[in-house]
């Protein structure tokens, strides 16, 4: 590793080699003991020390408990939804069974023939109401 690459990495990742790309850490480590390497790391370390000073408080119990309550509500709602979907699924299966049964009955049962057929749309209970057409008249 040359000084240029070492400086570029220090500029991006700071002065702590543990944050540097794993693939370049061994080569960087050798270069770090040189005078140039030391100077580069010292310069980068100044900003690192300032970044270290910016701490964030650990989450409070109130926030922790609120998040757990939300989780609990969500799980209860999901269980209910699952129950409803199960009910709907069973109802769907029942309905599908009924439709299939009806279809089966329709296919298997032979068609019932009526005693007589109305052959002519003009026929009434008193006889054929259509115009009398006698072959001789034609």
């Amino acid at each position, binding site marked *: 590793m040359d000084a240029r690459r070492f400086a570029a990495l220090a500029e*991006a*990742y700071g002065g702590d080699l543990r944050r540097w790309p794993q693939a370049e850490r061994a080569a960087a480590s050798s270069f770090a003991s040189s005078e140039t390497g030391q100077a580069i790391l010292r310069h980068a370390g100044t900003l690192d020390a300032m970044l270290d*000073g*910016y701490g*964030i408080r650990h*989450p409070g119990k109130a*926030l922790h408990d609120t998040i757990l309550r*939300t989780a609990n509500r969500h799980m209860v709602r999901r269980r209910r939804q699952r129950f409803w979907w199960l009910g709907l699924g069973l109802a769907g299966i029942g309905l599908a069974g009924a439709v299939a049964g009806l279809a089966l009955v329709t296919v298997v049962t032979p068609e019932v023939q009526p005693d007589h057929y109305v052959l002519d749309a003009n026929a009434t209970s008193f006889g054929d109401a259509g115009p009398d057409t006698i072959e001789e008249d034609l």
Partner: protein
Amino acid sequence: MSADPDEELVRRVGAGDPAAVQTLVARKLPRILSLAARMLGDAAEAEDVAQETFVRIWRHASSWRRGNARFDSWIHRVTLNLCYDRLRRRRELVTDDLPEMVDPAPLPDASEEPRGIEQALQSIAPRQREAIILVYYQEMSNIEAAATLEISVDALESLLARGRRALQMILVRDGVHD
């Protein structure tokens, strides 16, 4: 791709295991909160973002499948998106409330005191801030951070270098850094 250390835990959360829920909150809440707090520079808003992130986790845990990203990267992405929504809203509010005449007097909170790293971090570009927070504070490797930001490692290095340069300039200007 290496194994995801959170995969089994997320599966148990998805199955409704209360112990897994507690473990996940204990494991991830500090990370999510510190990410949001440093992105937004506001503790109360950060807590809101942390809560919203967990609502999304509960909603997606049962269907979460590992694609290209680990679960930790996914929650970082969710948190960052929620932070960006809030930063965008802030910008819109500022633009809407902008007075027609600019008052030349100093702002009430403007002081001669050094502003420190916290304010300096808020002053740099959000994308640069994001990169520094992920690598420096969230202790992500360069590959994980680049995957979370959906950019190449080279682009991440460029963001980091520009971000650190910008921070140094602000801190020198404010007399905090030599």
